[in-house]
């Protein structure tokens, strides 16, 4: 239960204002601080969940303070995931750390890890409509960032093709053949729903975030994009890493 908690500022490569927590000495106060801060940045993850996630974090990093891509790549159950690369990439994407920076980093600390995880929290019943809307946008933004690899604010056809290709990467040659066609069809759909009248010489550059929101309206992202943090318990946690 009492996992060792070392949080060293020296090893934290992603310097963040949040890493001040390193100065706290007692582990619980530190985690609580973490919680407070995450609450400050509108992330409602309870202390219990943070503890659990922290345990998992240490397990993955091998008791280091930061986690690297290799750490995540070595998770055995992730190996079968067709979009593994993108998922891992999202963790190291600075855009998902709420700091208004772009680019990616090599290693992330626990708080960044939490930040990324916080995109997957479920909505609560008490949320107002605006809060829900904000949450939806935030989740959509996360997805959008996963697609928009060059951070130019649009998902171009090339990027979209890549997404579909990755999605079908586990299904062999049929997948690769169909991927392009599907991406094109999808792109065409986006273009025709959002810009219904286009002159022949117009060029639809790519999906902007507004268009992205528009096309995924029906999916009710705010309620679907979540995982159950609450159920994270220590017994199942072992399975991921230690069986490898």
């Amino acid at each position, binding site marked *: 239960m009492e996992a060792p908690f070392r949080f060293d500022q020296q090893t934290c490569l992603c310097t963040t204002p949040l890493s001040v927590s390193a100065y706290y000495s007692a582990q619980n106060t530190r985690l609580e601080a973490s919680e407070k801060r995450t609450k400050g940045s509108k992330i409602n993850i309870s202390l219990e969940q943070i503890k659990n996630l922290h345990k998992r974090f240490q397990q993955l990093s091998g008791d280091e303070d930061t986690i690297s891509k290799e750490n995540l790549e070595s998770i055995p159950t992730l190996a079968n995931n067709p979009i593994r690369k993108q998922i891992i990439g999202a963790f190291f994407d600075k855009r998902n750390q709420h700091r208004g920076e772009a680019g990616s980093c090599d290693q992330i600390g626990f708080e960044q890890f939490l930040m990324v995880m916080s995109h997957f929290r479920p909505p609560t*019943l008490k949320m107002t409509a605006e809060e829900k809307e904000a949450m939806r946008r935030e989740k959509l933004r996360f997805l959008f960032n996963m697609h928009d690899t060059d951070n130019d604010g649009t998902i171009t056809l090339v990027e979209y093709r890549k*997404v579909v290709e990755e999605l*079908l990467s586990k299904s062999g040659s049929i997948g690769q053949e169909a991927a392009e066609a599907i991406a094109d069809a999808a792109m065409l759909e986006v273009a025709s729903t959002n810009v219904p009248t286009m002159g022949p010489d117009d060029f639809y550059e790519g999906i902007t975030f507004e268009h992205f929101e528009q096309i995924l309206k029906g999916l009710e992202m705010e309620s679907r994009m979540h995982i159950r943090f609450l159920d994270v318990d220590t017994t199942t946690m072992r399975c991921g890493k230690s069986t490898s």
Partner: protein
Amino acid sequence: MTSGTGPRGRPGAGRGLPERGLLLLLVLVLLEGSVVFPLGAASSPDVDPRGHSEDRAVAEESQNYSKKAFPVLSLDYHHIHVPFEIALWVLLASLMKLGFHLIPRLSSIVPESCLLIVVGLLVGGFIKLAGEKVPPVLDSQSFFLCLLPPIILDAGYFLPIRPFMENLGTILMFAVVGTLWNAFFVGGLLYAVCQIQPGNPSDLHNLELLPCLLFASIISAVDPVAVLAVFEEIHINELLHILVFGESLLNDAVTVVLYHLFEEYSGAGTVTILDGVLGVISFLVVALGGVLVGAIYGFLAAFTSRFTSHVRVIEPLFVFVYSYMAYLSAEMFHLSGIMALIACGAVMRPYVEANISHKSHTTIKYFLKMWSSVSETLIFIFLGVATVDGPHSWNWTFVTVTVLLCLVSRVIGVIGLTFVINKFRIVKLTTKDQFIVAYGGLRGAIAFSLGFLLEEKHFPMRDMFLTAIITVIFFTVFVQGMTIKPLVELLAVKKKQEAKRTINEEIHTQFLDHLLTGIEDICGHYGHHHWKDKLNRINKKYVKKCLIADERGREPQLIAFYHKMEMKQAIELVESGGGFKPPSALPSTVSMQNIQPKKPAAAKPVQRALPQLPKGREEEIRTILRSNLQRTRQRLRSYNRHTLVADPYEEGFSDFIIKKQKIIELEKKIIHMNNLTLPAAPPDSPTLCRARLASGTETDFKPAQQQKGKQSSPDPQAYRPKRDSVPTIQVDLASPQSPDSVNLMDEFRANGSRREEEEDQGLTMRPRGEDGRREQLTRCLSDPGPSADEDEDEPFLP
């Protein structure tokens, strides 16, 4: 007499067609009623062994013998009366269904189920008026073995698996705990009320606890037929629909167990704790056993369908027969037949659909819909007839208390359960949702049939029970069924999105699935997504290999979705009349060229090979096409009892459709060319653009279109030339008599003034290489080609 009744029914239907409203409908009912009761007169119904009619027949016969003359025309109604009456009922049901849809205003106010019950009441009334005994139409045998299965199979086969599984916990909670709660709450309080009746020594005092509980368990289950009938009309959102509907399906197991349990012990008088434990075990056996039986038959059906590729005609039959077998097998062991059917339908569907042909799939769809809607109609009519018929014993106290308790227990049950469920649910149920779930708890014919099944000698109060059951059914169907629609509007409950699922949504659904699985893996938490992913992988790796014959059937979901969508649009395109209307609702002018990234290649002039047909050549092509077109038609017409269409087209159904359309288009184009008309550019069709991309090879084409600056139209690439079944017209470029009748598109556009000059010097084609040229040209010729925009550029043909 019988020969007279048939024709009398028909004109009634004919007259009903011009929408004369309710009056004519009543005439129709009258006619039907008059049709029914003479029949009843001719042959007394099943209960009564055919008394006098048989005598009459015998008398007739003896008369014939005495005359010794050959009977030129004889009447033997008795011989056919059972199927004849069944057919008449079905006809009545279908005509009613038809009638209601002719009066749109009526059906928007009153749900169909209510109207049908009223019709049943009227028909029953007529039969009674004629002084005949009403046939026990809704007896339990025919209801459970014939009328119910089609409806449940339809529900199971088209069960939206995803929302169902996502909400399985909630559904089970409502179905099991909710129904139990309802049964015991209503039963207990009913018993209490029966006991407290000071100064009114009615026979209610004699009612014991167990019959009360039995009655309550019958009355407490939400009925799938009633729910389907009402919820289909109010178009509620998917979540609420699946919650109420799923509950009505899954509570069957609880009802079956409770029913048998109480029926068993109401004779004995007491229930011990052991019986309770056995009841719980029995519940598990009934529910899981039902699902298991259904799943086994489902897999059998899927496996069988793997081998039907040569006998396409009987494919749909397997689906029906296996499902029915599953139902009967489950009923044989007193397992839950409904759950067996649901499981069977849901299990077999993905595999069967991958194996069977497109037409068989359509057949299955239509048959299921037809059967279930006729069954549903009959059930409601029969409910009305049975109401008129039934021996009623009206007891104000009992009936009122029952209705009230049903309502109260439902409301309390839903609120209490939601309170618990909401602790675990991510998407919480709001107060509105709770209200609709509670209000949508309609009771229906299953309860009535179960009540009908009770034996008079064990349950002296059977008549009172039946009356109360009917009252509750009528109350829920009429009051709740009629008011739920306005209430849904009033509360602004979220409605079902009518829009079709778009490809972007499909992509992101898949993407999200993988993403959440991945995040769960990173968290080290083995949650829903993890197990679902595992199951999917097993399914893909082993089960599909066993059950699906065709390699193509095993393609990933996203690709399958894409192909299905393509096909649907192609069919719509053809059905909408030659493809000159946009298939989708959105009148968009966006085409593939708008989204293609501008490649550097687009900058330089592109070779756009366009054939210019000389007159003779054109005529030749036209005859070829026409003969081809005719031949396909002939092939379609040729009738064979065992196959539907001559083979090559059966498989490539979509190809066939696209091809046919292409031919029509090309013909049109040629006509245009002759008339020198400039047709308006047809609206863009996304399908074809997509299809063009699907072929994937002609990158050199797209820039050409871009250059042209026309919006793309149905174009050659939609149709892949590599298929064998396609008639391609080879034009040999090298041959001297084929003129170099090709011009360059963009040159054309650039200076339209040069047209005459160009015509003089002949048409040239400047492709890069010989191979490329030939390929392009054959493609252009073998397909109708981008018709309209080309037309525009070719007005100078004589």
